[in-house]
């Protein structure tokens, strides 16, 4: 037996669905509303918030090091794991699971201006966070929502993301100690 929905029934069905949707939405916002103590708050505005994030900080290359192909185009690529004769500054500081990893775990052998995921997929340096996220997945997740790392800009609008490599040197990622600013005066010093 064939069963067709009549047009009228369809409209009623749609109305019912939208009513359900509205009820769900309202109960959601009322929950949000409970958080605030002040009577003036109108929860309607909450959903107008613009959540826009742009990674505008370029990767912090040292001077003259990029594009890599300026030099590497003239050198024969070798996949053999070894101590490099070049890039002493990097090999000297390298401290990022250095027993088990070396250059070609992140850099591509042939396409020198790209990074390389474990899957073999090539990656622009601007997307380096995806490479870091292969191992540090929990940090990547927190970074995406703005909890790990730093954002500047507007709390409710345009923000600027910093890449992982803006704070962590990818070849030696541990944070370096820094000099603290001056301590406050002792109380007897500050009252004159």
């Amino acid at each position, binding site marked *: 037996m064939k069963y067709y929905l009549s047009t009228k029934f369809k409209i009623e069905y749609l109305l019912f669905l939208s009513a359900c949707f509205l009820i769900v939405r309202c109960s959601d916002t009322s929950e949000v509303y409970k958080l605030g103590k002040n009577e003036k708050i109108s929860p309607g505005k909450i959903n107008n918030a613009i959540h826009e994030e742009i990674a505008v900080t370029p990767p912090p290359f040292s001077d003259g090091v990029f594009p890599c192909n300026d030099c590497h185009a003239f050198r024969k690529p070798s996949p053999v794991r070894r101590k490099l004769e070049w890039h002493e500054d990097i090999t000297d500081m390298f401290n990022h699971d250095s027993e088990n990893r070396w250059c070609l775990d992140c850099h591509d052998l042939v396409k020198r201006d790209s990074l390389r995921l474990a899957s073999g997929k090539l990656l622009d340096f601007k997307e380096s966070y995806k490479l870091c996220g292969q191992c540090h997945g929990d940090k990547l997740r927190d970074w995406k929502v703005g909890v790990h790392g730093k954002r500047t800009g507007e709390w409710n609008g345009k923000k600027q993301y910093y890449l992982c490599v803006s704070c962590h040197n990818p070849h030696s990622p541990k944070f370096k100690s820094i000099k*603290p600013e001056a301590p406050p005066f002792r109380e007897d010093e500050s009252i004159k």
Partner: protein
Amino acid sequence: MKKPVNYSGRRNFLKNLSLFAVGSIALSGCGSATMKEFLQKNFRTLSKKEKDDIIKDLEKKYTARYGKEFHVTDEPAADGVEFGYALDLSRCIGCRRCVYACVKENNQSRDPQIHYIQVLQMEKEKGIDFAHSDVHYNPDLVPEEGYFYVPVQCQQCRNPQCTEVCPVKATWQEPDGIVVVDYNWCIGCRYCMAACPYGARHFNWGEPHIPAEEINPETHYLGNRPRMKGVVEKCTFCLKRVRDGKYPACVEVCPVGARKFGNLLDPESEIRYILANKRVLVLKQELNTQPKFYYFFGV
């Protein structure tokens, strides 16, 4: 016959004396601006026009004093906003960058010194223990082995005791949750400082000194405008900046990204993510002050 005692002589004398006193105050050098300021009402009872007048006078006064064009706003709280703050204790390295970014943004007195943010160094073995914390630590490099750091500033309580005790209602909680002070109405009794369990309020014991080249001329009436001797001041989450939509100065300067700020009523905000997903604590929870300043462990 006895002559009746004439009291009117004495009465007239006193009347004339008081008239003379009032007249001499009005005519003396203190000027109409000071008189106007003296007679100014509580900020919350002022009309739009009165506020605009006061702000115009203040801008003129500050511009003359610091030789820079000053802006003072009275931007009110936006609807649907309640500010919250979170600080990642697992990241803070105690470098005090936030302390001085705050001083600069909020025009705190350099001498006598006022800091809204106190960074407390605590021993990892003792945990959060105010009695054994140190605010004057000064090694060559931070962080130091075996220590962690707890920056403390106004906790922007939902249940603020400082506003309760103010005898003249010169301090109150704004609709977006920020506790502010009307410096012109404050009488300097410091009850609020006694009531605050976090030591977050600071008194101007002397006339504040800020070098003219370091003054921040973008100010809010209830926030970072220059203060005077004898009034209490405090962190306002950088009222001027956050009501313009920007992050507070301490958030922007933190070199390790330990400081997070946002709208508690926005389910998509960083702050709500932290409350939902991280291990969070507030200071002195047992006092029921209900801070909107949360500490969390990001790792």
